[in-house]
């Protein structure tokens, strides 16, 4: 896979299909790849990688990159293509300047997942079938690939590549997953338990804005939280209320636009499961207004910008629906 990604990228540049390639660049370690724009086949062959640690969703970079001169080729995993389509739906990407290469994805691994398994001092990693052989400062460890998977990949919703000009690997299908299991588990708790759960999680928030800045849906010119005229501007969560406010409003603003790519949770330095807030809203919208997947097509109206005469009343929530 890695070889065909690199060769495709190099040949796109060599044949002049594009002038730039947006991909992943190797780092100091096996896992710390950085999104990067490559302008020559040499650079691509030298530094570009496609490994199970290329979690970063590159679609958001296209907002700026697709407005520059010349065509840019971009490598997108299935879940990234949902963001790609959604951003186009919101007129944020100049599609004609983009050559989209879909890359089938085996599921991405995460150094944090390895560390959660108790591994320390990660220095190398080789994949052998379903096993990762991880070199550490304290010796070699074998880890089942499934255990190294990034949290978001454990509930992969689709392997389908949307709106690509070329595909590496095979076109995939939508998957039946239990991605709402954790949401359901929380719903089954009492309000007090849920409050305690979220207080514990959200009180970790340091308002670094990584979740917001990585989020393809959070692509506002100026976020309301940065806008001194919005009345809600704040730079730090100066009280527990503000910790809640930021994440409630963010979830609400991306409702119907969030493709559930899971980047927010991946990048959170404090390991807050932020995606659960978005998933909760996705689950609600699916149940209340019909199944909708943001970025799955160009036509369907997002549920928050639509209605039916028969929509349930808000009392379905306030008078108790989630069981008591």
């Amino acid at each position, binding site marked *: 896979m890695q070889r065909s990604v690199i060769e495709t990228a190099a040949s796109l540049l060599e044949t002049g299909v594009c002038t730039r390639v947006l991909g992943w660049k190797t*780092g100091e370690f096996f896992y710390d*790849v950085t999104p990067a724009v490559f302008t020559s086949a040499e650079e691509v062959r030298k530094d570009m990688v496609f490994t199970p640690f290329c979690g970063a969703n590159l679609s958001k970079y296209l907002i700026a990159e697709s407005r520059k001169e010349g065509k840019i080729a971009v490598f997108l995993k299935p879940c990234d293509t949902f963001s790609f389509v959604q951003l186009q739906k919101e007129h944020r990407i100049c599609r004609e300047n983009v050559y989209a290469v879909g890359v089938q994805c085996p599921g991405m691994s995460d150094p944090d997942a390895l560390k959660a398994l108790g591994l320390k001092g990660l220095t190398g990693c080789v994949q052998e079938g379903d096993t990762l052989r991880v070199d550490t400062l304290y010796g070699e460890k074998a880890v089942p690939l499934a255990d190294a998977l990034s949290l978001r990949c454990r509930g992969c919703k689709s392997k389908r590549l949307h709106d690509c000009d070329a595909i590496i690997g095979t076109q995939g299908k939508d998957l039946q997953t239990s991605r709402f299991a954790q949401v359901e588990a929380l719903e089954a708790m009492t309000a007090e338990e849920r409050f305690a759960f979220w207080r514990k999680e959200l009180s970790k928030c*340091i308002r670094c*804005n990584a979740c917001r*800045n990585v989020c393809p849906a959070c692509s506002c010119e100026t976020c309301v939280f940065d806008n001194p005229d919005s009345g809600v501007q704040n730079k*730090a969560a100066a009280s527990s209320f503000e910790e809640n406010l930021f994440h409630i409003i963010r979830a609400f603003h991306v409702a119907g636009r969030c493709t559930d790519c899971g980047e927010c949770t991946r*990048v959170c330095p404090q390991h807050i499961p932020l995606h659960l807030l978005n998933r909760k809203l996705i689950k609600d919208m699916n149940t209340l207004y019909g199944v909708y997947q943001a970025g799955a097509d160009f036509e369907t109206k997002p549920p928050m910008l639509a209605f039916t005469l028969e929509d349930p009343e808000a009392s379905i929530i306030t008078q108790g629906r989630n069981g008591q």
Partner: protein
Amino acid sequence: MKTWNLSQLDDLFAAIAGRQTLYIPADAAGQPAFTRWEPGLAMTRALNTGRSAKDLFFPQVENLAAFQISGKTISVSPAQSPEEDYVIFGVRACDCRSFDILDSVFLAEPADTFYQARRAHATVITLACTEPEETCFCTSLGIDPQAPGGDISCWMAEGRLYLQANTPKGEALLASLPDLGEGEKPETNPSVFDKLPLKDLDFSVFQEKPLLDWFNSPLWESLSQSCLGCGSCTFVCPTCQCYDVRDFEGGGTVRRFRCWDSCMYSDFTMMAHGTNRPTQKERFRQRFLHKLVYHPNNHQGQIGCVGCGRCLQKCPISMNIVKVAKALKEGSV
């Protein structure tokens, strides 16, 4: 050297907490952080906390003053500086060095009274490292992770904790703990430090060339290209010290507080005319040149980085000071 049985660490914590407030690195919702010790709170097994120890001297949010508004009259009440003594246990050598860097900024005249008060009231107990992560590079910044410093240095070896007071404050604290035993810590030779992949980083080159050479490097464009402009590197960094002062209008009371700010943010030092660092390239360059060039230039060569490796672990796009320093160095050859 004082010593204590590690299996009874809780009793030592209880003894300290009986005299002063004690903070130890503990897991909170899966994330290690300096936490106020209470009976039952266990020390984290992680090497270091997610946020650095600077939080205890320079918290993310700190009230500076309050204004009461009643009708058309306003009364001002300044916030109280902390007056209570407290102990921080388990600070690693890297974080301990970061206090020197913060001191050089906050304690320079005019001293930041809030920071000063917290520093004065704190006793820092450091803890030597034995199991570094691959992202650790304090050794290449002249820090010895096995001789961590602070008011009291600690080592854990062969089931015992060894404590060595480095300052009068440290001695006073140890003296107040009469149950400590005496003993000499065994010599250890953890060869793992020699295997650290980043042990040979060399930052000296940044003082050897003129500032403008670094400033005008064409590499900033590509290095900053994928930066998201979030503040995670800044906020986990033990040496970042920028803050913003803001007012919160909460009805009858206006509270003036300061909170961390990040030079990576697009509205950092926003002025009436706009911002002087219009794109992420300038912001990105500011952060790294501040650590590598500006701070050392102004502080006798002291590099504004302690090699804790937090930014290596936390950056969403894995761009960090190591990559920047290496690229600049290579690019300058």
